[in-house]
């Protein structure tokens, strides 16, 4: 039940620029007390920039932020927090080395009459707080020793316990089990009753429809729609997010993927066998066939990226093996994987992808350099040939191959990364979140490229948190949960409801402890 009274937190006509990109243009957003307001948009639409404005990480270049009716200017996150705006992020932004209790009360530890921290009271109150939310952990344990889901629940408990008037949740369920999601929603219900305003950012439409009252849609840095969620058709919501016609979305699906591809042959080109690593992967096995797109599905933290890394030898395993074209790889290392014809496009291109100060050319040839050199000296001519070819094929927009790669847009950077792996002529291409954080146009191009590569006979493994992308792009989906394979969807079973069921089913069976 929302009261359309005076908003507790409001953004009026805000704009924010970064070098080379306009992240937000004239955005207005209003959150009422006791309301749960959904904030949706594609990657790169401006959601996280808007959140950072609301939480004091950034200041708007123009426009105004109003809190409880008064214009405010937060110089840093501390100010926003002190004012009563609390935030839960997608990554757990707590201190792993410190205990759960210390994390919960950091900055506001209970003190005794001497002014010293009262640990006994802190542990007691921490235990009580977590009990209220049904979170069963040892408050003295280091936060980092807990599962991601449990860590996220601790972050939730902290955010909610600071007597906030506004709580902002950025993709809060990406690492939660269904049971924990229920707890989260119960908490949100309580917040609503207390008159706290909640801003909920997520791309999981099911959840939005379950818990949110209103929705604001961002696209390319602007607000394209704001209004109540009830009565807004799902398809219409998605078409607003994508900027495409409803009928077109219904016809073509949500992504640029064409219909499924047929495997070139039934002989797998890559076999992952019994990959196991304590606490991370348990007995993961599956096959990948040329010409087919094999999806890896599961929640955040289910082990998809770890599986991909294990296959290319970037993550050491306790046991298990990888077989490529019938031959077992003796050594699992990135260099060995590359030699065997396996390439991995990592999930975090900033941390594990681009070499920011080097040129586009040098980034593309990074892995192929030994093949393009003579007696240890680099051959510019050979490099230029490859670079030109791939810049054309992938339509990489750059002033020249010598431009610093950090100056390119996210989409073009991702294409540079793809070029790096494709120029090695791989047999198997593993793609971990290939369209994350890039604009809609580049996203479409990448999806089309994946299609083309599969049609040309390449074996592709696709990891994506975007359910539509995964379902439409993959021909088969191997579903992971808690580090193990729980299901494999093929043919007509490859759809969203089956996928969600596959992930939830196992969790349900396990919850009898």
């Amino acid at each position, binding site marked *: 039940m929302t009261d359309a009274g005076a908003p507790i937190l409001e953004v009026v006509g805000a704009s924010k*620029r970064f*070098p080379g990109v306009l992240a937000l243009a004239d955005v207005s957003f209003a959150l009422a007390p006791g309301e749960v307001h959904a904030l949706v948009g594609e990657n790169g639409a401006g959601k996280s920039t808007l959140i950072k404005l609301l939480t004091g990480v950034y200041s708007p270049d123009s426009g105004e932020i109003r809190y409880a009716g008064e214009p405010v200017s937060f110089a840093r996150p501390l100010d926003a927090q002190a004012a009563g705006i609390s935030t839960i992020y997608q990554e757990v932004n707590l201190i792993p080395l410190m205990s759960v209790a210390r994390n919960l009360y950091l900055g506001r530890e209970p003190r005794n009459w001497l002014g010293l921290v009262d640990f006994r009271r802190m542990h007691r109150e921490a235990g009580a707080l977590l009990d209220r939310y049904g979170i069963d952990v040892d408050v003295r344990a280091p936060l980092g020793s807990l599962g991601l889901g449990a860590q996220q629940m601790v972050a939730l408990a902290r955010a909610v316990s600071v007597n906030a008037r506004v709580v902002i949740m950025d993709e809060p369920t990406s690492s939660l089990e269904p049971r924990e999601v229920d707890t989260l929603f119960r908490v949100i219900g309580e917040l609503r009753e207390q008159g706290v305003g909640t801003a909920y950012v997520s791309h999981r439409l099911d959840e939005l429809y379950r818990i949110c009252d209103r929705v604001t849609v961002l696209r390319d840095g602007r607000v394209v729609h704001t209004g109540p969620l009830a009565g807004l058709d799902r398809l219409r919501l998605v078409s607003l997010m994508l900027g495409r016609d409803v009928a077109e979305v219904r016809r073509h699906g949500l992504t640029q993927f064409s219909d499924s591809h047929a495997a070139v042959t039934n002989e797998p080109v890559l076999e992952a066998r019994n990959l196991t690593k304590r606490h991370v992967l348990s007995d993961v096995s599956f096959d990948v066939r040329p010409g087919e797109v094999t999806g890896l599905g599961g929640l955040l933290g289910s082990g998809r990226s770890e599986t991909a890394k294990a296959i290319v030898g970037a993550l050491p395993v306790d046991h298990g093996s990888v077989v490529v074209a019938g031959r077992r790889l003796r050594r699992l290392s*990135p260099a060995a994987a590359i030699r065997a014809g396996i390439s991995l496009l990592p999930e975090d291109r900033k941390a594990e992808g681009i070499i920011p100060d080097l040129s586009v050319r*040098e980034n593309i040839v990074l*892995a192929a350099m030994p093949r393009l050199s003579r007696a*240890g000296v680099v051959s510019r001519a050979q490099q230029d040939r490859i670079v030109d070819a791939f810049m054309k094929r992938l339509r990489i927009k750059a002033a020249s191959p010598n431009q610093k790669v950090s100056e390119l*847009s996210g989409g073009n950077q991702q294409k540079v990364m793809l070029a790096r792996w494709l120029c090695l002529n791989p047999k198997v291409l593993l793609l971990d979140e290939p369209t994350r954080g890039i604009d809609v146009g580049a996203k479409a191009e990448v999806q089309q490229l994946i299609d083309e590569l599969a049609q040309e006979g390449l074996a592709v493994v696709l990891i994506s948190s975007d359910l539509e992308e995964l379902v439409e792009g993959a021909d088969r989906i191997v579903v992971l949960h808690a580090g193990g394979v729980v299901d494999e969807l093929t043919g007509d079973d490859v759809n969203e409801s089956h996928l969600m069921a596959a992930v939830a089913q196992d969790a349900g069976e396990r919850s009898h402890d």
Partner: protein
Amino acid sequence: MTELTVSTPSVDRHRIARYLQVYGVYAAVAVLLIFNALFTDNFLAVSNLRTQLVQVSPVVIVALGMALVIGTEGIDLSVGSVMALAAAVLPMYLGYGVVPAILLALLAGMAVGALNGTLVAVVRLQPIVATLALFVGGRGLALVLAGGQLKQIHNSTLLAIGGDDVLGVPVIVLVAALLAIAVGFVVQRTTFGRQLVAIGGNRAASQLAGLPVRRVLLVTYIACGAFAALAGVLATARLTASDPSAIGNLMELSAITAVVVGGTPLSGGRVRVLGTVAGALLMQLLRATLIKHDLPDSMAQMVQAVIILVAVYVARERRSR
């Protein structure tokens, strides 16, 4: 729908800062040269220029090795101690001939480098900690080997290396110049050099791309040790005495200063060889200017401190707000 790109004033500020970082050191060297040419007696005299170049050469040699290490986002605090070690080893084996003695001294430096490299690349210690241990213990080791004594050098070949000219240029200066050219070539044009720079720019990405990260790091630290040992040998030859207690004192500071002032970022990913040479020259000229104008040593140190701070300030990564 394409991205909206907007050119903003902050981009120009970035560009100015970058120019300052890259070219600032050359400008500063030029300014000092001109200042001294005008206001310092006998500055442009050949004998003075010779002295300046001879004095700066060991620093250049060490700084070149340091630049390579810093390019990998590492640091080597042990270079001064390696110089002392080389100075201690050298006279011990002169009896077998100049060449074996020099080779053994270089080997000692490479051994230290190998140890540093193993700790950094295999054990994955932080470079500051790994090289700290050798900084602490290396000079002590050198003193133990030398019996704590200063030894006069009488070997004529070695003295010739230290004092004579080849084609009118002192041997030391020639070695430094040749080394600078070689390192510049390696960094720009060889696979090893480009891989080194990539590893410094983003180690995780380099690892995933199959680069031989451990091997490159190991070789880099070994090279740094070798260069430091070479500098120790040359300095000993010039001083005509092996003095492990004094040689290379504070050399790591001078080398790091030269590298940083010369525009090579501490965060790795770029190696500016010419800038490093210019950085060493700058500090040398600074010192010389202050001395020739009778300014005390204390002033030189404080000025050096300010210069380091300014150079790093200009070079630091900007976070957008």
